[in-house]
């Protein structure tokens, strides 16, 4: 038994190494000197670490502008979606009403639509209202996938709160709204944070809508900026590309590590029980 455990541990470590290697290679390349990067015999770790590539990446045209665009798009999308989705999630979690099932079908079904299938109509409709090449147009399209997702996830967090707590507060003489604000809100605050962060990540990572709707370099998002990085020069500056990649990934990775447990639980809790 012990020998088995040891063998499995070795396999586990190998799988870990294979899975994590691309991430490791990205970060180490970003810190290596060019001679190390282009040498035929790769070095496993930066022997003479340099931060020059980060300077090169951030001094590329429109980097900071595009980071700013991404931030604006993401923050507005998340703020609007959370406000609207929260109300709908309360309705789904705390009320039974005719049409509830239809609404659930809608919320889940929309999340299955492939984004590529929506670029044509969104482009044509937004062009009609002069929303192509405008951040507001992208925000509108991001609602199509962030809104259903946030409704569904928030519903999961609100359901977790026992009805008795809410009722106890109402017996105490407060109104439904009062009960809600004093009892429910503090309990779902962690869920609200986790859902917003996850919505932040999906919007920050989005590529195809931004690629189709924003042609102007000064209007692009950071993922589109990164995707065009290769084409900007004849000899690829791998160090700067990996530095840019690292910078794009950092906010997402940090946020994701914070909320992954909560979201993964929300996604699987129901499935395991059923």
């Amino acid at each position: 038994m012990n020998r088995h455990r040891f063998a499995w541990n070795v396999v586990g470590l190998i799988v870990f190494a294979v899975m994590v290697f691309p991430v490791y290679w990205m970060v180490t390349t970003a810190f290596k000197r060019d001679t190390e990067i282009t040498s035929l015999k790769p070095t496993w770790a930066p022997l003479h670490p340099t931060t020059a590539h980060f300077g090169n990446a951030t001094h590329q045209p429109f980097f900071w502008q595009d980071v700013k665009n991404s931030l604006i798009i993401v923050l507005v999308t998340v703020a609007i979606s959370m406000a609207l989705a929260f109300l709908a999630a309360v309705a789904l979690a705390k009320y039974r009403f005719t049409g509830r099932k239809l609404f659930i079908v809608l919320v889940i079904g929309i999340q299955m639509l492939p984004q590529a299938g929506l670029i044509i109509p969104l482009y044509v409709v937004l062009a009609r209202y002069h929303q192509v090449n405008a951040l507001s147009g992208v925000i509108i399209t991001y609602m199509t996938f962030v809104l259903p997702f946030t409704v569904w996830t928030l519903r999961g967090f609100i359901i977790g709160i026992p009805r008795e707590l809410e009722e106890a507060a109402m017996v105490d003489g407060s109104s439904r709204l009062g009960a809600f604000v004093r009892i429910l809100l503090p309990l779902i605050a962690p869920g609200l944070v986790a859902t917003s962060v996850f919505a932040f990540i999906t919007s920050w990572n989005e590529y195809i809508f931004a690629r189709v709707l924003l042609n102007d370099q000064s209007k692009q998002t950071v993922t589109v900026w990164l995707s065009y990085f290769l084409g900007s020069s004849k000899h690829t500056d791998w160090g700067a590309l990996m530095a840019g990649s690292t910078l794009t990934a950092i906010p997402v990775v940090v946020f994701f590590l914070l909320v992954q447990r909560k979201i993964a639980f929300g996604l699987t809790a129901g499935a395991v029980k059923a």
Partner: protein
Amino acid sequence: MNAAETSIRLSRRRRRLTLRRAFGASVPYWLVLPVLITIGAVLGYPIYRLVRLSFQQYGLFELIAHKGKPAGLHNYGSILHDPVFWHTLVRTIVFTVVNVGLTIGLGLLVAMLLARVSSVVRVLLTSGLVLVWSMPVVVAVQVWYWMTNYENGILNYFLSQLGIGDFFHHDWYATTLSQLGLATALIVWGAIPFVAITLYAGLTQVPGDLVEAASIDGANAWRVFRDVTFPIIKPILLILTSLSIIWDFGVFTQPFLLIGQSKLTSGNYLMGIYLFEEGYLKTDFGRGAAISIVMLLIVAALSIVYVRKMVKLGDVA
């Protein structure tokens, strides 16, 4: 206070209560209304336009004039008579089957590995998986592009060192098979963490004494898996498989960016890319709309199982 007064008072009170109850009954509708209106505007209306566009000739000229020319079934006919469409459809189906098979198969193996390693290794491996899970797709593409670069990509170095063959300056972007193979590797690598972690959560629900009892009764590892473990994780497996099918069939970003604009040809299109090239880049929005509709219908058919399962879950709660 006389009887009449009391009765008036009571009826007033009753009316107030009914009003309050009526308003109470409408509360959930008021709550979902903002979401419904928004979805209708940002998705419902575009989808209505999509259907109309697919029956119109709609190019750049029409885009500027905001008015399409009626074209009947011409767009659909032109797709269905386009050999590229049929080749792309078959290629996408094969691509989806391979990707989903590898994702679920490897994901399940990693999940079972997680259940067998010591807790230190488990924490380490889980953290690694979460790290990979968190990688933005566009970033992952760039890293893989760098690793598979023919000149000084680490993959060629590795394969040569391992003695698998001479991969010096091997160009992975030379043939369709190897281009789509790389896209598959990238997609599967990115999808394993979600599948493995979710399945591991399911595996922890399998009672240990049940497995033990089966082993004592002489069942081998495969029998234990088939008769004890599998039935318990089947619902999760079903959901993960449907999700993977839907995602991989509509995949765009990974193959589009990894293969790269200059190397995309009608010989290596997947459905999402075919749609992007034919509809958006060639500004033939009517034809693009028809392709979108065909694609959305296929995905809708594929999603029925998943959506029904999830709706049932949502209804219970």
